[in-house]
């Protein structure tokens, strides 16, 4: 099922079922080789992923990939292994075996913050806000690699460049001499502007000063999406973002996702709800009993007998 075609897949949302898929249990060198040859257009690639909890195999040799700029859906009945796969990608679980590649890099078994710092950022099924922090604090928390995340920079006052220096000398001064708190506030002012703009995009800027804990469920979902954007991600993992969301908000959220996708962001959407996936994702991966059951466009999936069996045979 893995697609190892050499030519970059830029536009087409379709993946061939053919192709020389590597045999399960290929040597590691071959796996790494595959990672290197993975075209840039395929940011996320899961290879023979396996996760066992004690005697239970939650994910059994699942392989799939997500193409750049796509909105890929991952569905399956309860217990299909969607969430476990998701957690293995995000670094919450360490896979028993198999590999996860992100932009050609092996990220298998990295810690959550390391995965996030590669540009692969997740949301949570139940929106998890920092309840005792304001909406803006939540937003400002997210950007990666902030100057002020160093204790030293936060505390030490910076030494400003003397006035008699010209612009290029000033720039060099600011590179060499510790700028400490000065650099922190400068960056914070820029980030603040971005935070406000992002809040406006999600239409929750009127809540900026509120505690996140006082937001409604739907507003929290919006905030969570907005916060993820603040990390400047390459790709976003959405864990059932529409669970328990009313139809109006659902439409709103999906509109935002489509807008962002058009700007080049890649999404992997894990969802329980068949309809949402069918109507929104150009590429769909169906998991069942820990493996990838089917892959393809909505119409292919809809008419796939195995998918129908899986959904009707197990749970709805």
């Amino acid at each position, binding site marked *: 099922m893995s697609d190892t075609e050499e030519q970059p897949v830029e536009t087409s949302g379709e993946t061939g079922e053919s192709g020389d898929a590597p045999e399960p249990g290929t040597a590691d060198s071959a796996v790494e080789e595959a990672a290197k040859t993975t075209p840039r257009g395929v940011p996320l690639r899961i290879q023979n992923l396996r996760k066992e909890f004690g005697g239970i195999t939650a994910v059994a040799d699942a392989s799939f990939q997500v193409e750049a700029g796509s909105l890929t859906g991952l569905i399956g009945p309860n217990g299909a292994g969607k969430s476990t796969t998701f957690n293995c990608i995000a670094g919450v679980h360490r896979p028993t075996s198999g590999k996860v590649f992100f932009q050609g890099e092996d990220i298998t078994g990295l810690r959550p913050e390391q995965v996030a710092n590669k540009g692969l950022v997740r949301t949570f099924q139940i929106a998890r806000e920092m309840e005792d922090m*304001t909406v803006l604090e939540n937003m400002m928390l997210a950007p990666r690699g902030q100057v002020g995340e160093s204790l030293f920079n936060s*505390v030490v006052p910076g030494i400003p460049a003397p006035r008699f220096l010209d612009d290029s000398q000033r720039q060099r001064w600011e590179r060499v001499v510790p700028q400490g708190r000065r650099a922190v506030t400068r960056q914070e*002012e820029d980030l603040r502007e971005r935070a406000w703009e992002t809040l406006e995009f999600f239409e929750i800027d009127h809540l900026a000063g509120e505690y996140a804990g006082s937001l409604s469920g739907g507003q929290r979902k919006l905030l969570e999406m907005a916060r993820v954007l603040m990390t400047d991600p390459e790709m976003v993992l959405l864990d059932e973002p529409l669970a328990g969301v009313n139809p109006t908000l659902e439409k709103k959220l999906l509109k935002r996702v489509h807008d962002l996708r058009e700007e080049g962001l890649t999404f992997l959407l894990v969802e329980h709800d068949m309809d949402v996936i069918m109507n929104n994702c150009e590429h769909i991966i169906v998991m069942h009993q820990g493996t990838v059951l089917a892959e393809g466009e909505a119409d292919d999936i809809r008419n796939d007998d195995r998918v129908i069996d899986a959904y009707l045979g197990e749970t709805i």
Partner: protein
Amino acid sequence: MSDETPRERFSGLRARFSQGGGTTDASLLLVTMVALWALFAAVGMYLGYDTAGVLGTVQSMTFLVAVYALAVLALNLQWGYAGLFNIGVAGFMAVGAYAVGFLSGSPDATPAGLGLPLPIGIIGAMLIAAVVGLIAAFPALRLRADYLAIATVAMSEIIRTTALARPLAPITGAGQGTRNFPANPARTLYYENPADVTSAPNAVGEAVFGVFESFGVMRTNLVVDMTYTVLLLVVVGLVYWLSRRTGNSPFGRVLKAIREDELVAESLGKDTRMFKIKIFMLGCALMGLAGALWQGLGNGSVNPTTNFLPVLTFYIFIALIIGGSGSNTGSVLGGAVFAALLFLLPTYISNIVATFNLRLPRPNSVIDAFTPLLSADPLPLVGFVVANIDSMRFIIIGVLLVWLMQNRPDGLLGHRKEVASSVDLMRRDRTRGQTAATDGGRTQGGADDE
């Protein structure tokens, strides 16, 4: 915005206050301290103390407030910001106190010190406390919060029993404790040979003592203690500034996020373990500083059988809870309220009551105190409480804590929005032109809600 209405200006002020603005907080602390000074001076005068006695009353209160403020600020960094449940505060303070004695104490006394200069001793004490904190926390920080609590309380008792251990007597003085501390900086300021109790004052000392003598204060020790207390207040100011900067920054924001939901912080790419280790070490270093300046230089004697008992940790926790965990200003305020009003003031009550000549009955036991209640005679109970106020105050503190937890769990200032950022997030002064005006109106509405 020059054309703002008074109402807008007022709501702007309120917004700034609710964000923990610098000037209002400073004045709040100042007002509190002035009130406490007035109260204790009044108590001293009421009890008929002379000028020196009144000054002494005020000084010993201020000293206790300052050292509590230091320890509470340190704990606030760990518990208030990052949610790290350190119940070994007393242990880390002990490390600081013993370390400053060991590093800067006289080499000739027993237990011998290294005789290093005082600044090196203090910085060394902080570093040692930080390293001990790292040792205690490193295995536990990777686990859940509860394990850190167990590890720290165990560490604190290990430190205390180590200090008691006989084989370590050459360093710690074991059960006898140690009095070998360097002369405090106030003595150094006023005496030719600060280490010698009988030393003659130097020129500065002569001048300062002369000024106080003209007001009838003959006790030079009191002048030294007062000077030391003023220096302590400066240190409190510095630590407050440090804590504020630490909290109001992206660093502090990550700490808050760790307290709220560590997995989310990780999912946003924050290496939470590094943040926790850093703040834990910083907090322990400041606890070490508190111990060095309080029991070490301040009291000048340390004994592991009476100092650094776990109860000290709980006092500091209570002070932080009273003030409002997560708030630096609240930490200082809580330290002041606890040390002055709950810890120290009750010790004066029996003296004050005695001046009324009430002839209260003095029952010898609880039974004698309570049984008269059956015949509607509360006086024996009142007499009992007044006579045993030293122990009773801890019952009062306990009751107060229960009341606080139920009615005001956020403490005095914990309910405020103290936004962790180096800039005011509600302002958007970089927005160009007309949007700034509209945003200004809206943001005020947002900040105003609380």
